[in-house]
């Protein structure tokens, strides 16, 4: 035991001597040739500090984490993202999507119901499902427009309506964006809860893609309640929605969870995901209205034409009709007195 302790003691002693020897040149640097302290020896210049970390932070009497940051040159990079990258990305993605859809409309045209309307209706979406969809949709449009105003308003609107009017409008738009976001969160949560079961991937989705997704008229693309395209929109909306909600929460409660770098990243995520989301939803709106005959009524009245359902959601229609027959049969049997 004793020898063990003395071993440790000698090791510590050797380490101490080695450390002292290593520290000697540093000490020498801190003292000038005349023995006076050299005031610059230990000062780390700004560019060295910035090489070590993206921000220079220090101690400050103000009780605020933000005020502690002396310098964050990353602000200039964020400026570049916001003014150059985001403007180009947003304009390209959104205008590009509109152009692509216009081209699709001109080339493919409106997808008609092949066999015409049957006149018989099938319930596709219940009133609660439609409410959830429209809650999300209406809040999305409001959030999209007010969000785009923050990025593109000063280019598009400001020169037209003037600085005073644009400023008042943008301030109102900012509050609308911040509060309407709650409706979007609720709407998205409802949509996910209602439809996640029918959006799980199935084997038929592969077949649907192979058959051209209903865009090739000679082929029939089989599908359940939601086809593979709709499922992609669903999962995209879920992923992108979660990303904009989380980043949005960070931005709406500034500096509660994150520091300045976190706020910048949150804004980048929020903006990039949002412009992609807007582009995807523009396509979703197109196919649900102008792009396909008989599709919009599913969300308007909730009922679709039998022939439309047969063409686009055959497997789902079979299930529905089977359920109806079953209900009718049990209805008949229950009508018969149980004697």
């Amino acid at each position, binding site marked *: 035991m004793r020898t063990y302790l003395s071993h440790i003691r000698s090791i510590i002693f050797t380490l101490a001597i080695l450390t002292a020897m290593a520290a000697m040149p540093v000490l020498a640097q801190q003292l000038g040739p005349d023995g006076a302290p050299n005031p610059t*020896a230990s*000062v780390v210049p700004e560019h060295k500090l910035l090489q070590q970390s993206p921000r220079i932070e*220090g101690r*400050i009497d103000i009780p605020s984490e933000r005020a502690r940051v*002396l310098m*964050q*040159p990353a602000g200039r990079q964020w400026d570049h993202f916001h003014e150059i990258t985001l403007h180009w990305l947003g304009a390209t993605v959104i205008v590009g999507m509109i152009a692509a859809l216009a081209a699709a409309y001109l080339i493919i045209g409106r997808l008609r119901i092949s066999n015409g309307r049957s006149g018989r209706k099938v319930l596709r979406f219940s009133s609660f499902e439609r409410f959830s969809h429209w809650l999300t949709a209406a809040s999305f449009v409001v959030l999209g427009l007010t969000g785009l105003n923050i990025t593109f308003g000063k280019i598009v609107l400001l020169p037209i309506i003037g600085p005073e009017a644009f400023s008042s409008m943008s301030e109102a738009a900012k509050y609308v964006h911040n509060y309407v976001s709650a409706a979007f969160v609720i709407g998205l949560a409802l949509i996910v809860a209602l439809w996640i079961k029918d959006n799980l991937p199935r084997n038929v989705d592969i077949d649907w893609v192979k058959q051209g997704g209903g865009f090739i008229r000679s082929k029939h693309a089989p599908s359940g309640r939601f086809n593979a395209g709709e499922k992609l929109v669903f999962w995209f909306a879920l992923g992108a929605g979660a990303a904009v909600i989380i980043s949005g929460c960070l931005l*709406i*409660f500034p500096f509660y969870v994150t520091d300045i770098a976190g706020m910048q990243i949150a804004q980048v995520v929020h903006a990039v995901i949002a412009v992609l989301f807007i582009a995807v939803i523009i396509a979703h709106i197109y196919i649900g209205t102008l792009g396909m005959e008989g599709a919009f009524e599913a969300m308007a009245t909730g009922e679709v034409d039998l022939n439309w359902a047969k063409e686009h959601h055959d497997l789902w229609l079979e299930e529905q009709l089977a359920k109806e027959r079953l209900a009718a049969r049990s209805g008949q049997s229950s009508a018969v007195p149980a004697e």
Partner: protein
Amino acid sequence: MARVKFLCDADRCIECNACVTACKNEHEVPWGINRRRVVTINDGKPGERSVSMACMHCTDAPCAAVCPVSCFYTTADGVVLHSKDLCIGCGYCFYACPFGAPQYPKVGNFGSRGKMDKCTYCAGGPEDDSSPAEYAKYGANRLAEGKLPICAEMCSTKSLLAGDGAIIAEIYKERVMKRGYGSGAWGWTTAYHEGIAV
């Protein structure tokens, strides 16, 4: 017209915070807003330095670039000012500012920051020079009276310099030559895209 700048000679700053106090007093800045602040790096360690920091009135100011309502403008002297009438309190200028200069009167949940406030280089705002309206929103306009910013004017060690960028750079250079050391003009490379070579 000169291009005015700030320069904090960190080797002279004694962290007395008089610049902070003088600024608050001169402009009657509301509680919670600090147009100027002193940050101490390596506090209590060898090489400790304090730097007085406010808006540096940047060249190609990032705050002005990112402002969604374009409420910033640069004067002929290179001072970056903004209009509180146009500001919507979105907070973007704070994300873009390399120096943490923009301040807001409120905490800011749900976008309720209020109108942004920052160092004006004692040059007021878009209102008429030295008018009561200008004073209420932006504080004193010393530049219009031919005076330099109060923080630099009353700095006891003349660590904080304000004025024509070329002249204060020359003063700093002379100091470094004479005393034989200098930790550099803090923030100059980021703010003005140029350091001071000695």
